[in-house]
């Protein structure tokens, strides 16, 4: 193992590499689609009106949205794993996916599945997310500090409760509503873009920078609570800031796209394997890796069953679960052979 101190020049290299990787993922997302368009011609001012609409009004905002959501989820996951001192943690463990889904489902049933997302299920899901987070926070913070084990258990239980409530609503819903509910719960970007992209274009970078500001303290938290305290970290305050940051960032993503699984779990691990566990490089690396992964996965979701479309959450799960197993096996090998 090589020591990799986080110097300024290494940080710059990681960010530059990350921008290239994200650019590649976004390019893949832009190039593939059910409807073939001549991208070089479009970029030089050519192409038909239909092609222009498909590319500039539909595909581009959606691909950018996927990049922003992917980056936001990955950054949340990286910070959340350090906060809970648990490599298996992902942002949805906080009850966000359950609360958000329940809110969205109520909106779908009340307003019908045809209502504009931003006028119905997005704000409703956001309210649901925040309600779940408030419950988790109040339960976990009772002793003055957010203890990782309590936080985790409170999140799991809150999630289970909201999913049960959701199942209850879905059981009495009409088949058409039920179909819309199923689609939402799987997580997807179908028909999204435009205003949602603008929302994420503000929230994702701000949230990522906010968590980046905690990066060095996350290194210390991941090492141990007492070590962090003895090195001058106010552990309680830091945990609360990271909790609030990851929560709001994840809640906005869930409200827009539904719970897209595995991005927040696997992208941070993949980034960690490349740049190491120092959060000052891990957080930017995770952001750009997520911003590359989700647009590419969403591109796949648009073509595998064309002219139909899969929820991208299915793609991320199908790709993510085996990749995670591969990462685990590789880590195990590293542990065994590291003594030399």
């Amino acid at each position: 193992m090589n020591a990799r101190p986080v110097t300024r020049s290494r940080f710059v290299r990681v960010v530059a590499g990350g921008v290239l990787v994200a650019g590649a993922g976004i390019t893949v997302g832009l190039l593939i689609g059910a409807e073939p368009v001549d991208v070089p011609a479009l970029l030089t001012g050519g192409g038909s009106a239909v092609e222009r609409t498909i590319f500039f009004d539909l595909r581009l905002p959606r691909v950018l949205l996927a990049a922003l959501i992917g980056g936001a989820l990955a950054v949340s996951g990286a910070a959340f794993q350090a906060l809970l001192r648990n490599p298996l943690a992902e942002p949805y463990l906080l009850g966000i996916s359950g609360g958000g889904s329940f809110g969205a489902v109520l909106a779908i049933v009340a307003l019908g599945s045809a209502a504009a997302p931003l006028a119905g299920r997005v704000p409703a899901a956001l309210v649901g997310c925040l309600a779940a987070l408030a419950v988790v926070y109040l339960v976990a913070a009772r002793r003055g500090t957010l203890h990782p084990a309590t936080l985790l258990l409170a999140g799991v239980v809150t999630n289970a409760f909201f999913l049960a409530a959701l199942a209850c609503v879905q059981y009495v819903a009409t088949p058409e509503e039920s179909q819309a509910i199923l689609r939402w719960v799987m997580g997807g970007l179908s028909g999204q873009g435009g205003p949602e992209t603008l929302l994420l274009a503000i929230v994702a970078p701000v949230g990522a920078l906010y968590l980046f500001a905690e990066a060095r303290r996350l290194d210390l938290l991941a090492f141990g609570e007492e070590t962090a305290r003895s090195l001058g970290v106010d552990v309680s305050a830091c945990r609360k800031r990271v909790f609030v940051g990851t929560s709001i960032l994840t809640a906005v993503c869930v409200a827009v796209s539904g719970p897209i699984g595995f991005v927040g779990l696997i992208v941070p691990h993949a980034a960690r394997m490349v740049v190491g566990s120092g959060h000052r490089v891990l957080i930017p690396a995770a952001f750009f890796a997520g911003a590359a992964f989700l647009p590419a996965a969403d591109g796949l979701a648009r073509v595998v069953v064309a002219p139909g479309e899969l929820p991208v959450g299915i793609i991320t799960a199908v790709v993510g679960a085996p990749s995670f197993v591969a990462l685990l096996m590789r880590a195990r090998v590293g542990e065994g052979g590291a003594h030399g």
Partner: protein
Amino acid sequence: MGDTASPAPALEVERVAAGYRGTRVLSEISLVCAAGELLGVLGANGCGKSTLLRVSAGVVAPTSGVVRVGGADVSALRAREVARRVALLPQDSGPLYPMAVLEAVLLGRHPWQPAFAFEGDEDLRLAREALREVDAEHLAERDLATLSGGERQRVLLARALCQGGRVLLCDEPTSHLDIRHQAAVFRLLRTVADAGRAVVVVTHDVNLAAQACDRLVFLRAGATADGVAHGATLEAAGRPRDVVTPDVLRAAYGIDVAVDHDHDGHPVVRRRL
């Protein structure tokens, strides 16, 4: 205790009481550790030795009493300022993910780095210097998780040294170590103290502490009466040959022992099953 003519001692704990959620752990403990001094803290399991270190490091606030570092009241300082003056070597679990030794030592620079800082040449120089001081420079590139217990303690000690304070507090640095490495850790702490730092070490090894330390402090676990814990008190404090006696050990540990002396006059405790 201490030289009253000298300026403020490096570490001064004055009538400190502490506890967690209503349970009293320490009751009116006072002690002083001067620069260049190695002070051993001994006492039964769970009697409050670790709490005493946490309070001394400003990690836990005392319920009453004062901790002063170089004359400054710790409760009046910000956490980062305390961390620049006092280093604590806790019994922690270690990093969550693989981490190279040099990176672990660099964590010690945190109290000195502004927000959004990256490791500069000065940080790297200090980290390598600290590793050299504990004779662990050759471990810099190793994964912390692959080190032996003795190597690991040296590296964590380097992190504390790299933190730059004049006070070093070590919580059972020899636990899980074999007798050779136990002796090595105490020799190292002796060297660190001789270089001018005030070093407080919590330990269960009375004999090693009696050899290495300038002074020893024995805590006695507090009695619990009517369901109320009264907190640990100071049983004895002084030079090893004065305080390592059958009476003090009976009071501190509730065990009968014989005490001999080796050729250098250090007390040696003998136990029987």
